[in-house]
């Protein structure tokens, strides 16, 4: 399937949850509401024509200093899906407000989402509702703040951690 057909198939089944779609240089994207993301991901995985069996990447973007998008929702959680069987791709996005930075987890659909969501929590401070074990992944427990947020000072010093007693 090409990207237009994938988006059409998505629109057919999850049309009420899709906020926008666009394509840029052959990469097709659907922006979904937070309430609809898990059902859309489930559909993408289980539908025989789509069959997105691989969650390539789950990450986030902080748009707070992005030219032209300062006033919109601060974060976007991004899902890159790939189908090994059909060799096609799609990108799904969910806008997330700063005050209510929670997204339902996808770790029940793809096991790898467990660690990817932990990394997003670690770096951006976005929580994943229903995640079985939402701890920091790359950084350590004593770390203060979330370093990939644009308001994290670039030269901020963290206290040195000592050996565990």
């Amino acid at each position, binding site marked *: 399937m090409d990207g237009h057909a994938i988006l059409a198939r998505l629109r057919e089944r999850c049309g009420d949850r899709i906020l926008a779609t666009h394509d840029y240089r052959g990469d097709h994207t659907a922006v979904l509401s937070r309430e609809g993301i898990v059902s859309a991901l489930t559909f993408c995985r289980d539908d025989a024509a789509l069959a997105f069996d691989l969650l390539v990447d789950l990450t986030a973007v902080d748009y707070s200093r992005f030219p032209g998008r300062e006033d919109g929702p601060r974060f976007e959680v991004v899902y890159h899906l790939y189908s090994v069987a059909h060799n096609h791709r799609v990108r799904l996005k969910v806008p997330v407000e700063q005050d209510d930075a929670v997204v339902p987890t996808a770790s029940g659909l793809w096991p790898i989402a467990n660690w990817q969501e932990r990394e997003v929590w670690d770096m951006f401070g976005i929580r994943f509702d229903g995640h079985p074990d939402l701890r920091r992944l790359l950084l*350590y427990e004593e*770390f203060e703040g979330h370093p990939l947020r644009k308001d*994290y000072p670039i*030269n901020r010093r963290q206290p040195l951690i000592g*050996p565990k007693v």
Partner: protein
Amino acid sequence: MGVGAFFTGKLDEAIGWARKYSIFQYPFVTACCGMEYMATACSHYDVDRFGAGLPRFSPRQADVLFVVGTISHKMAPVLKRIYDQMCEPKWVVAFGVCTCTGGFYDNYATVQGIDTIIPVDVYIPGCPPRPESVIDGLMKLQDKIAVGTQRY
């Protein structure tokens, strides 16, 4: 100078001479500087000429801790524990600019110089340092080991 002080001084010199030519290093290699460390250690530059040819991969058998490569905050407690496990007398060499000051990794993850964790005897800056500067640093360390009071 009394006879006793004369003999202690001579004994110190002899022990310093022995110690500076029997450096057993512990290479704490975490990053790309390790390549340059290997180049220095291998036959082309050959640190064995300076008595430092046998790295020990156990801190309990080592005299000199070579910290080679970037130290992150997560690695810092490990480095401290390795240092604590070494027996006296012990020396530390900061190999590469990341271990000296943090280098260009002025960010949330990197320790800004290992001297914030453990005492350092010789700093070898460079990104990575050429084998010549490593050998220069090693010779400076030998000078430092040879002079001064020896504890035994």
